[in-house]
Structure formats: C-alpha cells, structure tokens
C-alpha cells in the first residue's frame, strides 16, 4: 500500500500545497487502493475515476500558477450516494433510481467542488438512508474493514468503510437517527452530526426532512473539522438552513483544552442491552475526561427512554410523504406501462419493484401513523415526546457544557444477524436518536477496542445547537490523550485487508 493513503487529510493537503506531492499522485494512490481492496469491502457504488483525476490535475495546475489553495485542495473524498452529483449516477442505494444521472449538484457537492476537494465516487448506503447496517442497500452489503463478516454500520456504512479501509481520508455522510455516528463508532473513525440546519440539505435525497443532517466523516477530529467548515453555512436554496455564522470548529479542533469544562454523563444511556466491553471503554473515557481537567457529573434525561419509539413514528411518517415523489412519472424506474394500465397502477407496480423491504415497511408504518383515527395516538404523541426530549436537553445544558455517552450499545454485529428483526436493528440507534429529534450537535470518536471481540467502540459527545465547536474541542482533547496512551491512532490496528 502506498504511504499516501495512510496520511490524514490535513497532512495530505499540506504536502500538496508545498509541492512535495501532486494531487494527481495522491488521487492515483487512493484509486489504486480502491482497486485493490474494494472488491472485498464494497464501500463504493460508483467510482468517478476520470472526474477525480480531472479535479486533481486542476489543483496541480492552480498550484503551478502560484494560486492559493484551499485547506483541503486535492484531498480525496467519498460522497454518500444520497447527494446529487451532476453527470454522475446517484441512486440513494435504491433500485428505483438505478442509472439515474442528476442534472444538478447538491449544495454539499458544489461546495466540495469549489474547495477543490477530489470526489472519488459515491458510497454504498442503506436504501434511502433507512437502516443501521448497510444491508438494506439494493446493491449488496458493505463489509466492516475490521472484520468483513460484520456490518460497517448504517446508513452511511460505505462512507465509514471507505475511511477505515484507507481508500480515502475524508467522506460525507447523513445522519437522520445516527447514520453518521453509528458507522463511525463501529469502524473506529470520527463522525459528526452538525446542528440541524448547519449544513444545507439542498440536493440531498430527502428521507425525514426534520431530522436529516449532512456531516463530515474522517479518521481524525481535525480532518472532520476542516471538512465541516467547507460544507457548513447558510444556503438560500434550503429554507431550513440556519443563517448564522458557523462556529470556528477548526480552531476548536486545534485547541483541545478542556480544563474546567463541565461534562454530563447521561444516566439513561446504560443498563440492559449494553455490551460489557462497550461500557468498560466508555467508563475509561469518562475517567480520562476527569484526568484532563473536566468536571464530570451525572445527569438524568428521563424522556430519552421514549426517543426510539418517537423516532420510529416520526421518521416513517415523514418518509411516507417524502417518498411519494417516486411515482414513476418524471424520473427513475417505470414498471408495467404497457398502454393498458393507469398511472396509479404503474406507480404501484414500480414502487413494488423498486423499493426494498425496509423502505416498504417504513412507508406503510408512516401511512398508518398519519391515518385518520390513529394520528393523535401515534404521530401526535411522538411530536409531544419530541418536546419533552428537547426540554430534557435544555435542562441538562443548564448545568453542563456537553453530554457524553457510548455511541452505540454494542460493537459491530455480524451481517445478517438482525436482518429479519426490525426492532432489534432499531436498537442500534438508541443513543444517537435524541440529538436528531432535538436538532443539537453530536460527534462519535474512537475510544478503544472492546476486550471481548477486539472491535472498535465509539464515544459520543453531544453539544447544544450551534455549539458544534465544543464537540471538536472535547474530541481533540480525548483523541490526543488516547493516542498518547495507545502510542498510535486506533485505526492503525485495523487489519491491512
């Protein structure tokens, strides 16, 4: 393997800017790594070799002309296949969009291009981001680079697996109930769900509009911060985009001093269903925070125990409405149009053929929860729980600066283990969902390997809305201290494949 693929994004950008290596050399090294390992990992659905090399050549030309390069110019990136990319296939992991080539770029795509980031291709995901294992992709599952027989998390399993298999130092994910943080936790990488509205959703295939949030995935906290600052900020194309300055996350990631910071341990995020090794690593992380000078207290957020239930009513309800756009009329697949059938019949036949099981399950669940007679009991009650969860967070943040918890109750489970049991699968998002419901910011970063299975464990840090910089400050402090203890980044212990 070329050494170029082991570098962080920050190191890569510095080497390109100084002329030590060219962007083309960096891109070719990652494309070669992709060719060597992705048959086993299946992180990518589409590799845009020519597009990536063209961007890299443009970066090199810019440098030769003496133009100033942006902080991530020439650095390779893997983009979750939920973002539209002009001229490059976009499927959202669904058969119904197979072969679709969007005529426009998502705002995230556009900002990456403007920053001269090299987009290597599109990564595998659970269909329409519904899932916690990437097994719901219509194009087959992704393997976890730590153990290819296990799930890489979901829905952004492809993005995180591309990082953990050294195919790219940067990736983009989306997080509706944990789809950035849970894959980060189980692959030993860093994932951030920014404040809701912090990154534009324009051009992102919508699943649950009040929860969906795009964010950065990387192997280090600083790399995630650099990517965060490239994609974040107000966008007039998205009416839910926050029109306020983005907190200086890069400065926070370079600072990492947490003396005197008040950290709350959420009492409700432990107990039955949590793997012993996960709790052991989490408890060590809390001890580490104390050693670094933070003041740690236990806080109670009693309504968090209802978050999973509320989420599995709200997200399907919004998805049943959002996915109505897949009607076989204007784009995507069309089935059964033989001249005798009505548009309604063609829509139903197409959706039956084009959607996978989890999507059908959630569309029907949402249709049920929103139907007359059940609306108040289910959807209405779930929205009230959302109020209570927001209040729990607000109360906790009166006495602490950040909250911490394990990111996931268990390490990566074997592919197929929970495939036929939706409720067991939904438990993977137990600790991540409250932040989506309340819209605040959260990060997952590696905190060690579980002793019983040798698989990565994630530490979740939660900050109030628009205080994303606190995540990076705490994350940088924890990362530095852990790496000093381990003698190297945790990801160095991943198998070479």
């Amino acid at each position, binding site marked *: 393997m070329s050494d170029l693929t082991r570098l962080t994004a920050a190191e890569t950008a510095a080497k390109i800017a100084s002329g030590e290596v060219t962007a083309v050399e960096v891109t070719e090294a990652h494309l070669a790594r992709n060719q060597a390992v992705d048959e086993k990992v299946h992180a990518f659905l589409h590799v845009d070799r020519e597009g990536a090399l063209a961007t890299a050549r443009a970066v090199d030309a810019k440098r030769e002309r003496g133009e100033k390069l942006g902080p991530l110019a020439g650095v390779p990136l893997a983009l979750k296949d939920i973002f539209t990319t002009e001229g490059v296939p976009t499927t959202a992991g669904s058969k119904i969009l197979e072969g679709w*080539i969007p*005529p*426009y770029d998502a705002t995230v795509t556009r900002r990456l291009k403007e920053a001269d980031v090299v987009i290597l291709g599109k990564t595998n995901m659970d269909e329409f981001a519904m899932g916690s294992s990437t097994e719901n992709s219509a194009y087959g599952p992704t393997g976890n680079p730590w153990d290819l027989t296990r799930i890489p998390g979901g829905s952004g399993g492809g993005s995180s697996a591309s990082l953990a298999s050294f195919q790219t130092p940067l990736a983009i994910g989306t997080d509706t109930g944990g789809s950035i943080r849970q894959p980060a936790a189980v692959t030993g990488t860093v994932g951030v769900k920014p404040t*809701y*509205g912090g990154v534009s959703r324009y051009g992102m295939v919508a699943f649950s509009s*009040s929860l969906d949030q795009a964010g950065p995935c990387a192997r280090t906290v600083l790399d995630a911060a650099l990517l965060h600052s490239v994609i974040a900020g107000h966008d*007039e194309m998205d*009416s*839910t985009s926050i029109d306020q300055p983005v907190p200086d996350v890069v400065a926070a990631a370079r600072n990492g001093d947490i003396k005197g910071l008040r950290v709350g341990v959420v009492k409700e995020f432990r107990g039955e269903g949590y793997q012993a090794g996960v709790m052991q690593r989490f408890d060590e992380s809390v001890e580490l925070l104390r050693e670094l000078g933070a003041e740690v207290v236990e806080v109670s957020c009693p309504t968090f125990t*209802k978050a*999973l*239930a*509320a989420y*599995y*009513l709200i997200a399907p309800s919004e998805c*049943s409405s959002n996915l109505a756009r897949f*009607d*076989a*009329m*204007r*784009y*995507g*697949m*069309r089935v059964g*149009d033989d*001249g005798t*059938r*009505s*548009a*309604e*019949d*063609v*829509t*139903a036949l197409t*959706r*039956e053929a084009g*959607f996978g099981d989890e999507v*059908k*399950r959630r*569309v*029907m*669940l949402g*249709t*049920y929860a929103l*139907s007359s007679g059940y609306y108040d*009991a*289910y959807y*209405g*009650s*779930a*929205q*009230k*729980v959302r*109020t*209570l969860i*927001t209040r729990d967070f607000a109360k906790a943040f009166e006495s602490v600066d950040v909250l911490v918890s394990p990111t996931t109750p268990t390490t990566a489970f074997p592919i197929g283990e929970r495939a036929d049991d*939706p*409720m067991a699968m939904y438990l993977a998002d137990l600790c991540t969902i409250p932040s989506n*419901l309340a*819209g605040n910011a959260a990060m997952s970063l590696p905190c060690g390997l579980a002793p019983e299975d040798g698989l990565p464990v994630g530490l979740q840090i939660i900050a109030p809305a628009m205080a994303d910089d606190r995540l990076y400050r705490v994350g940088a402090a924890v990362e530095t201290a852990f790496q000093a203890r381990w003698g190297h980044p945790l990801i160095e212990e991943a198998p070479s494949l």
Partner: protein
Amino acid sequence: MPGITREEVAHLARLARLELKDEELDHFAGQLDDIIGAVAEVSDVADEDVPPTSHPLPLTNVMRPDDVRPSLTPEQALSGAPAQEQQRFKVPQILGEE
C-alpha cells in the same frame, strides 16, 4: 391499541401505492404489529398540556424576489424521464375511458 391485520396492511399498501405480493402481506402484518406495539409507548408520556414539536427549528416562510433566474433547460429537466414526447413528460393514462 389494535393489532394490524393482513387486510389492514393491504389497505395501507393501496394508500401508499405499493402493489404488495400475497406473501409480503403476511410478512409485513406480523412485523408492523410488533413495531406498532413497541412504539405505542409514546402515548404514556404525551400529556395534554405538552405542546407538540414538529421541527427542531422555528420555521418561517422564506420569500425571494420574483425575478427570472437561470434554471434547468427542458432537456436537462427531462433527462431522467422514463418516457418523454414533445418536450413533455409522457405518462400513462390518468383518467378512465368512461
């Protein structure tokens, strides 16, 4: 809370425009019943005096001046269409013959 029957799943599928196969009706009926049973606990804490929150942000209507701006060309807009004719989306019949 009532359980979900096979007939109800068939009705939901029709509402959601999904032409489910027979075996899927049985499969989903059991699963949806389990899920609904598990999520029904939301009503335990939803007191009448708690206002619902539909969105994490206070949403306001965003307006812009009604100016003509560059947009997709007809060719671009139609580029993903399953069928097209005379610069329009061609769709199956919408109204019956009667």
